[in-house]
């Protein structure tokens, strides 16, 4: 939904600034974004805000994968209450018995990411 309208790409860091299979937080204007570098070189971005704990912590979760309809999708588990999110879509795959805080949506917002000349750029 965001990819079509991307008009601005912001350079955030070098690829090597991101450890494989771990997240890092980045500031994009007023937004906090969680960046994840996968083993295959892909970099994905979701919101840093965890809707279930209402804290800015998603980048500190454990990266993994889950089989969804036979497809292995990359995931992150919130470090706070262990909800699992699809890193490619932001969809919450497992609410772990909780509901989001303050009536927030359970799914995470995503941002398009591209890597050019070893630089990570996030679109908005």
């Amino acid at each position: 939904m965001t990819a079509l309208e991307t008009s601005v790409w912001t350079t955030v860091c070098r690829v090597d600034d991101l450890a494989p299979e771990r997240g890092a937080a980045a500031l994009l204007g007023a937004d906090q974004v969680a960046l994840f570098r996968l083993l295959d070189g892909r970099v994905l971005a979701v919101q840093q805000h965890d809707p279930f704990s209402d804290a800015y912590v998603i980048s500190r979760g454990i990266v993994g994968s889950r089989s969804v309809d036979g497809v292995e999708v990359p995931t992150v588990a919130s470090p706070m209450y262990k909800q699992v999110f699809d890193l490619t879509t932001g969809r919450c795959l497992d609410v772990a018995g909780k509901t989001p805080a303050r009536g927030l949506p359970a799914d995470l917002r995503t941002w398009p990411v591209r890597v050019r000349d070893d630089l990570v750029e996030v679109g908005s």
Partner: protein
Amino acid sequence: MTQHLVVVGGGMVAQRLVEALRDRDTAGTWRITVLAEEPRRPYDRVALTSYFSGRDADDLALGDPELWSDPLVTLVRDDAVTHIDRDAKTVTTAHGRTEHYDHLVLATGSSAWVPPMEGTDLPGVFVYRTVDDVAELRGYVEKLSEDRVVKGAVLGGGLLGLEAAGALQALGAKTTVLQVGTHLMSAQVDLGGGEALRRLINQLGVGVRLNAMTTRIRPHRRGGVGRLDLADGGRVDADVVVIAAGVRPRDELGRSSGLAIGERGGIVVDDTCLTSDLDISAVGEVACIQGATIGLVAPGYAMAEITADRLLGGTSSFPGADTATKLKLSGVDVASFGDAFGETPGALEIVWADPVGGVYKKLVMSDDARTLLGGVLVGDASAYASLRPMLGRELPGDPAAFLLPEGGGGAPELELPDDAAVCSCNNVSAGTIRGAVTDHACTDLGAVKACTKAGTSCGSCLPLVKKLVTTELAAQGIEVSTALCEHFALSRAQLYDAVRVSGVSSFTQVIERFGTRADGRGCDICKPTVASILATTSPAHVLEGERATLQDTNDHVMANLQKDGSYSVVPRIAGGEVTPEGLIAIGEVAKDFGLYTKITGGQRIDMFGARIDQLPLIWQRLVDAGFESGHAYGKSLRTVKSCVGSTWCRFGVQDSVALAVMLELRYRGLRSPHKIKLGVSGCARECAEARGKDVGVIATDKGWNVYVGGNGGFTPRHAQLLAEDLDTETLVRTIDRFLLYYVRTADRLQRTAPWIEDVEGGLDGVRAVVMEDSLGIAADLDEQMAQHVVEYEDEWRATLEDPEKLRRFASFVNAPDTPDPSLAYVPERGQSRPATAEERDGASPTPHHEPVLVAGARLEVRS
């Protein structure tokens, strides 16, 4: 209209009655007053002997203590009932209390019978009936032991006499049991069994004299008891005498109020436990039911259940007493059940005796050798749990197979009928246990115990309960998956072994070799588990290479994540011992970084509100001041709590602080399935609360006692005794092996208490592995722990020395100097706390509060 039930007596059966009635009387039709003579709540009299080793009267507590907070239940302690007015339907107590009853239950139990002879009133002569008896006996023996080896004599070689002898022996007294009859435990065991039993008792160092009738107890010239005169002219020297010659029902209230009394005492009741006055019941040892009083708790419980049922309009009645017994004396295995003496006409006895091995077993069978009528098991009672429920039923195959030593013949698997009683303490049948699995969806032993109460009293049936549950789960096709997660079909223990044996040392290798899918990349369950396994099989820094990707955020930044996304910091304070300089250093760090400080339960200091980017700065200061990581964030050793010990304490017998510091430094950083806590107390007063820990060490004047499997939390547990009077070297080796056996074989997030329950053979099984090396892995465990001790390094110091690792602590990858703007704190009681959502939104504070200052992280702390 609420009716009033008055219960006279506060023993085990009274407790069961109240429990059963409150359990079922959901409408609250009865309020209950219990009038107890003893100054304490009902306790487990059967386990009285354990008071010697457990050393804590609270350990004998029965059932849920909440029962006594029930508004419909009143417990009056230390006030004996002296009079019953059956016309007015009132009882009067020694303290002058009068209670009107709608129904009265007499549960006064029995008292120790003291034979009429000279000298029973001398100091040093005891009975063995209440906690106070046992406490006085203990005090007396301990006092005498100060200047000599105490000689003890027990009059009576029955169940209670042998327990008393074991207790005296445990106190260091040289003890002789005097039995009037021809053999020990003559009420339960035949002559052959009695002879085998005598040899086992002798092996404990306890003397046995048979056909020994005591005629007189003579004083010593120093005062107190001195010797016993026997009918055959013999004499026995004794500094302390325990009379365990039998019990007599406490039926005096029944007699004085004119109730029918049995020929040999006891208040006569019918099969519904009603006395000759239909407004009065009698239950337990005071009741003369089906012509006899019964000195066992299980029939008493049955009477309590019947009475509760009848009070609520039920129709149950007494089925006949289950007189099966099992002696609980360490090192001596005795069980007797059913027709142990073969008194049924035509009964056949099948006997297996091995005098060398100290084993005697007998089964009593019907005249066609098919139906089990009873049995005696001495020296090896392992078949008791499975045979007893088969009473009155056909045994499959050759009955002799059940008597042969393990591996000798192979007894057929017993398929218990649904109505077979498995737990006689709580009257739970095999069918009820199966039903817990089929109808109540219980999938493990703990759930079945909670659901049915089976095995929650004496615990002797637990192996059988576990077997039934496992079999039933399998029969239901309920696969209890032990798979770790979708990425591993193995359990944690299986994966641990696989990793250890194969020697693989990275997650990628582990998931490629043992994972379910080639392209899986793990999850928040298997990754930290593999990290924990690798930490003890191939030790490396938590942030080393790929290891860093496996860690939970706590291990990844070596601090504890808090609700707002900030972290807390806990430096190690080994054994709770800290210098004034250390305290000042911690205080200055907390002050400079604006951290909230709190003392932890593990005797150290927690500093809250640290931002991720502050952690390296905070730790540089702490490391410079001589501190190291406290691993409060890890599934690993947390702390070894200690009392101040013999260095300062007037009562301490050993230096508990020195041992605690040594243990904490030995096991620091040891990654495990769950957190591990230890405690060391310098004397039996147990100020370090060591028995609430996974491993608790308590000083004795001979060395250390070690207890295992204690924890606080949702299901609090007291640790159980693993070994006694160990020297320090043996103690450390024992703890080494215990911890690593746990690390290797426990499930993920399984603490030591449930793990011990899961180990084959329970605590005894753990003891066999740790103390007797039954698996032949002790040398391996010792070596693994030695490696752990050598390779330990402070992971925070190592992190501070490595710029690559420090990059992980940036707040934002593109703005490492900008603190997280979302963090906000407000002052409270002189410190700061996270702002609530309302405070953050700038909403007006609640009216009864002072207006609050909402401050961003940058204002509150030095960055």
